[in-house]
C-alpha cells in the first residue's frame, strides 16, 4: 500500500521543506532527530523508487535490443 501511494515528487518536496526547516535554525533541537529521521526515510524511499524504476527500464531496454 505504502509503495503504491508513494510519490517521488511529493517526497522530494517534503524533504526540501524539512531541509528548509533545519537550515533556518528555527527548528527545535528536540524535533531535529525526528525530522532528520523522516527525511532520511523519504530519501531512502526515493532511492528505492529510482532503483526499481531503473531496473524496470533496464529490463524494457533488454527486450528492445
Amino acid at each position: 500500500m505504502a509503495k503504491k501511494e508513494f510519490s517521488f515528487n511529493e517526497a522530494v518536496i517534503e524533504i526540501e521543506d524539512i531541509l528548509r526547516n533545519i537550515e533556518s535554525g528555527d527548528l527545535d533541537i528536540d524535533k531535529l532527530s525526528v525530522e532528520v529521521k523522516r527525511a532520511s526515510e523519504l530519501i531512502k524511499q526515493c532511492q528505492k523508487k529510482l532503483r526499481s524504476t531503473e531496473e524496470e527500464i533496464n529490463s524494457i531496454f533488454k527486450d528492445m535490443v
Partner: protein
Amino acid sequence: MTEKLSLTELQLIIRDSLYLALPDMYWVIAEISEIKENYAGHCYLELIEKYPDEKNVRARAKAIIWSNRYRFLKSFFENITGESLMEGLKILVKTKVEYHELYGLSLVITDIDPVFTIGEMAMKRQLVIKKLEEEGVFSMNKEIDFPAVPQRIAIISSKNAAGYSDFINQLTGNSSGYIFYTALIETAMQGTETEQGVISALDKIALNSDLFDLVVIIRGGGSQSDLSWFDSYNIAYHVTQFPLPVITGIGHDKDMSVTDMVANRALKTPTAVADFLIDCVAGAENNLIEVSSEITDISRIIIEKNRNRIETSRIRLIPLSRIMISEIKDRLSGNIIEIINIGKEHIIRAGLAPANQESRLVSAVKSFSSGKKSVLERTIQNLTDFTTNALDRNNIRVAGLGNTLSILKPENVLKRGYTITSFNGRILKKSDQVKTDDLIDTQFSDGAVKSRILGKFEMGI
C-alpha cells in the same frame, strides 16, 4: 597640098608612117568591152579605157588575137587566173599597132599577162569586201542562227545546170529518209544577167521568207570560170541583208567569191551542200536521241537514288524500332532498380528516426535518473550539513551559556579577589543601602567577616 592622093595611097602612107613611128611591141593596159571568136578561131576584141568614174569611155581600140595565138593564150590565161577572157576584165597585153587600108587601126595581141588580171580582180574584189565591211554588213548573214532542221530550201540556180540535179538527187536520196522541201528559182548563173537574176531571185524568196528555212545558191559543177560574177557587190550586199541563211555551192576549188565570203556557209559543190543539209538534220536527230538517252540515264539515276533512299529507310525501320523498344526496356529495368534502391534508401532513412529516438530514449532515461539521483545526493548532503550546523549552533549556544554561568558563579568571583558584601542576607550593590554603624557581612573565598560601617564616602576617584 596640090598633089592629090587616092584613099589607098593615103591609107598606105598612114600605114607606113605608123609602122615607122611605132616599130616596137607595146604592153598596154585595157578593159575588154567586147570579145568574140569567129568561125576561124580568131578572137576579135574591143578594148576601152574609162575615166576614173568608171562610166565614161576615154579611149577605145579594136584588137585581134589570131587563132593560132588565141588557142594558146586562152588556155594559158584561164589556167592561171581561173577566169576566161570576157567583158569587163582588165588585161595587160603585148600588142603591135597595125594599120590596114581596108580595116583601119587594130592592135594585134601577141601575148597576155594573166598575173596583172589576177591583181586587178583581186583589187576589185578587195574593194567590194572593204565596202561591205565599212558598211558593217559583211557578216550579217553569218550572224543569222542556222536552223536546227533545214528542211525547207529555196534554191537559186539554173534548171539545166548539172549542179542542180546533183543537189536534188543527193538530197532526196538520203539514206535516213529525211524529207526536204525544195523550190527552185531559176536564173542565169553566169554572164551579165547573173547579177540582176540572182538579186531578183533573192527578192522573190525574201517576200516568202517564212516558207523557207534557208536559201541555197548553186551552180553547175565543173565550170572553173566565171567566178567573178559572184564578186559582185550587189549580189553580196543582197546576201548580207537576206533574212534567211544563205548557203553557196557555186563550184570552185581555189578561191572564194565575195558572195561565198558573206554567205552563212560556203561549200564547194552542190553535192556538198546537200550532204551538209542532210548532216544538219541527222545532227538534229542525233541530238534528240542523245537528249532522250540522257533523260533516260538521269531518270534511271533519279529512280536509283530514290530506290536507295527508300531502301535505306526500309533497312533502318526495324532496327530503329527495336532499338527504341530495347531502350525503353532498359529504362524500365532502370526504373525497377531505382525504385528498389530508392525504396530501400527511404526505409533506411525512415529507420534513422526510430534508431535515433531509441538512443535518445536510453540517454534521456539515463540523464533523467542521474538527475534524480543527484537531486537526492544533494538533499542528503544538505541534510547532513544543515543538521550538523544545527547541532553545532546549539552546542555553541549551550557552551556559551556554560561559560557565562561559570563567570557568574560566586565562588569563581571570590577566587579572583572580589568579595560579596551583604546586609541582612541581601547583597549590597550600592552604598546607600547601608548607613553608618550597620553590620555587614563580607564573604571571601575562604571564609567570611563581619564588619561595621564607619563612614561613607562619595566616589571621587
